[in-house]
């Protein structure tokens, strides 16, 4: 029950795609999803269906729920305005969720020590990012009266979201003692995609030539969607039907795409290791159920001259006014098209440098044949994800410790766009082949989740058969 509560909590409240706790935590087989070239520590494993990997993450780079809804003496509208003024157009909100539907892996190879490994799986992922449309918010909040000559940037509207399923197969090979590499191929099936990231244009009120003001709208806006139109058509009245549609799309009935991950590990010395990976170099081709919307054009308005409408004596003031109304509504008429389009997956880079130390020569090992493993490791990890406006980057320092044979912990300190105070703790425990892991970051923010800017939680169960565990 307790676990259930935690799962609910994490699905509701977690955020962000940086999995700094999982990266390099090679006791957990899912670390191969971050670096297909990681060193594999097991002979085979399978993830317990649906609960082998659950990841949820939500983040905001500036204002938090608490900033706006705190129960205090400050007027709500004041708090709201403060939040709007303090945020920048580069601030964003992200939601990311990932659930493993199934996964597994096994080692093989000709030599006595199997040095090749195949891993595979199927997971569902949702990824949403929206930037704060600051100029729109200011215009609605203040109006243009005190903002003559202010150019409201229509490009501040940027949002993209995708729900998809991913089937993947990875190959990993330990070439020699020092070098391991891996690649993973991915087949994406997009359930729903929404994409509005290439907007430009502006609205401005300036002193006019004929009248007090001239208003200029110059807009070049577009929103591309796939998988959405058919769901909206039935007014959401037929939920079972929609669920059927979702199921079909999850199992490769959606818009398909291909992707690639690649990574390596290189042991510089017995104790120093470097590794790196690039994930989700890939695209999705949106050809089914596509509906795109566009608003394009330029409109200038200075008012009307009703007494002497124009040089053409036959034109009445109302003809003249009607023309202006038509021009105006034409600008805001949404053009709908069904042009196919391609989206690129957000590419993620991971890299780390690691130093292992402190061999355990104590109690519970049988020291005759096996190489003793180091019990501790420290290192630095760099993470970057390419987003519509700019890459988001995070730097992590970690300490890893093997407490017992079946219990490992990792602590992290991360600096990123969200905060400078991100402490994380991960734990992997294994007993009779069943592995349970729990990774949580932003521990300091758990004191008040409403004030949390970014929370990320991962949890999972695997069945693992380890090397040298006979």
């Amino acid at each position, binding site marked *: 029950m307790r676990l259930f509560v935690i799962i609910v909590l994490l699905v509701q409240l977690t955020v962000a795609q940086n999995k700094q706790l999982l990266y390099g935590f090679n006791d957990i087989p899912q670390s191969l999803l971050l670096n297909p070239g990681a060193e594999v520590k097991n002979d085979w494993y399978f993830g317990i269906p649906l609960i082998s990997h659950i990841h949820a993450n939500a983040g905001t780079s500036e204002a938090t729920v608490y900033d706006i809804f*705190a129960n205090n003496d400050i007027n709500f509208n004041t708090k709201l305005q403060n939040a709007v003024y303090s945020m920048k157009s580069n601030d964003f909100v992200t939601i990311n969720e990932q659930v493993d539907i199934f996964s597994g892996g096994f080692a093989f190879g000709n030599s006595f020590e199997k040095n090749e490994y195949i891993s595979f799986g199927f997971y569902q992922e949702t990824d949403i990012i929206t930037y704060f449309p600051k100029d729109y918010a200011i215009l609605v909040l203040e109006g243009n009266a005190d903002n003559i000559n202010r150019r409201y940037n229509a490009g501040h509207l940027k949002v993209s979201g995708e729900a998809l399923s991913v089937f993947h197969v990875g190959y990993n090979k330990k070439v020699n003692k020092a070098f391991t590499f891996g690649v993973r191929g991915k087949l994406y099936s997009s359930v729903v995609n929404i994409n509005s990231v290439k907007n430009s244009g502006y609205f401005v009120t300036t002193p006019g030539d004929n009248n*007090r003001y001239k208003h200029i709208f110059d807009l070049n806006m577009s929103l591309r969607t796939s998988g959405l139109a058919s769901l909206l058509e039935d007014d959401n009245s037929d939920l079972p039907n929609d669920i059927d549609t979702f199921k079909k799309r999850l199992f490769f009935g959606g818009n398909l795409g291909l992707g690639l991950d690649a990574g390596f590990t290189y042991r510089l010395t017995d104790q120093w290791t470097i590794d790196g990976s690039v994930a989700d170099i890939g695209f999705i081709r949106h050809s089914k159920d596509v509906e795109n919307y566009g608003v394009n054009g330029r409109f200038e308005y200075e008012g009307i001259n*009703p007494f002497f409408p124009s040089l053409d004596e036959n034109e009445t003031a109302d003809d003249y006014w009607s023309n202006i109304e038509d021009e105006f509504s034409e600008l805001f008429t949404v053009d709908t098209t069904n042009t196919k389009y391609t989206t690129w997956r957000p590419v993620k880079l991971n890299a780390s440098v690691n130093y292992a130390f402190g061999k355990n020569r104590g109690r519970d090992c049988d020291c005759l044949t096996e190489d003793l493993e180091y019990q501790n490791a420290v290192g630095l990890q760099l993470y970057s994800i390419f987003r519509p406006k700019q890459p988001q980057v995070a730097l992590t320092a970690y300490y890893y410790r093997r407490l017992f044979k079946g219990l490992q912990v990792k602590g992290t300190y991360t600096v990123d766009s969200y905060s400078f105070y991100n402490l994380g703790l991960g734990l992997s425990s294994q007993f009779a082949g069943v592995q349970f892991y729990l990774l949580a970051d932003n521990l300091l923010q758990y004191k008040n989740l409403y004030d949390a800017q970014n929370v990320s939680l991962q949890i999972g169960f695997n069945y693992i058969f380890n090397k040298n565990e006979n």
Partner: protein
Amino acid sequence: MKRYNVIIILFMVLQYACTKDVDFDQINDFEINPVFETSFIYLDEPASRFLDNGQEVTFTQDFILVNFFEDEVLNDEVIRIDLNFELNNTISRNFNIQLDFVDQLGQVQHTFVINQPANSVNSFTETFENSTLDALKNSYQIYFTLQLPPSNNTINQNTPGRIQLQSFAKVYFQIKNTL
């Protein structure tokens, strides 16, 4: 079982993940008051524009159909409108401008007149609030009338000066949470 103590402790930490006092009902207090300004009518003509075949034109009238108050957002959220006029008359003649707001039945809902003396600069504001705002919102046509009251100073080809008018509407919104 010692190793599992760590797990239990971590569970307990997560259970203590807590929340400070927030009040989502505050959304009911939501209110913003943006103010927009938009150009309205203008006029900039020399005295000779008031001649038709050498005869002085003392009365010019036209109308436009307006439907912006059919939009519910405008209707519900606008609480006040000021029409601001700036006039500059360098002709030696008085003139006046009258605006009539007429509903769909042809009934005049509201009227105002701006009197502009000869050779003068003037500004004028007509405020629409409460009952006058309702009258404006009921309007379907706006009639614009420009009159030159009779005078001995009849305009001819050589009469110097211009009539200039610029104007804008200042629209006050009050947007509340209507959920």
